[in-house]
């Protein structure tokens, strides 16, 4: 049974603070993803990684960075938070080399509020 866990369920931060969101998967998946979900906008891809130390920008990478030092762990970093980064952040993983042909498994999400 695939499990994707995220370090926090809820976070409240002040504008300008640095935030680390950590994601861990236990199925030895190659690919890991960070999305944000906003009402009326669906899920939008921030970054993904297809191997350790490899990363690719998604559709909305501005204001975010990522780190993948170990295969099972993928971190999303917000260097200096702003109120427009208030959102639900979802991590996902998938196993196939063909990313576009394989279902993704999602974590429970982190609700980040920036005040």
């Amino acid at each position, binding site marked *: 049974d695939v499990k994707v866990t995220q370090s926090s369920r809820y976070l409240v931060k002040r504008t300008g603070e640095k935030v680390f969101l950590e994601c861990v998967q236990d199925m030895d998946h190659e690919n890991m993803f960070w999305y944000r979900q906003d009402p009326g906008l669906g899920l939008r891809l921030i970054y993904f990684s297809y191997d350790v130390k490899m990363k*690719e920008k998604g559709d909305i990478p501005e204001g975010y960075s990522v780190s993948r030092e170990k295969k099972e762990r993928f971190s999303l970093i917000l260097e200096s938070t702003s109120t427009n980064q208030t959102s639900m952040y979802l991590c996902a993983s998938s196993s196939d080399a063909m990313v576009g042909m394989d279902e*993704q498994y999602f974590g429970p999400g982190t609700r980040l509020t920036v005040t």
Partner: protein
Amino acid sequence: DQQVKQNSPSLSVQEGRISILNCDYTNSMFDYFLWYKKYPAEGPTFLISISSIKDKNEDGRFTVFLNKSAKHLSLHIVPSQPGDSAVYFCAASALEYNQFYFGTGTSLTVIP
């Protein structure tokens, strides 16, 4: 630009009736489609998929239909149950792409 669209933000259906959720896409390169279900405060969970070589795929109460010429897919849930109340996302991709493109979601409420 939204390549995958779900034009109905919400849908209410009586228990036992059919729920039909719709999804349209604009990119003719897409050839693999997924539906996810999401409960509040949980991550999306995979429900059913279809590739472009098929026009229908069934899994229990869930059936997905694909109309490639119309660039349209739909998810049918029969019979609908209160536990089906959730937000449903469709997603599309292709072998050439490194990501799935998600729709905006449809919130389904099944009324007991």
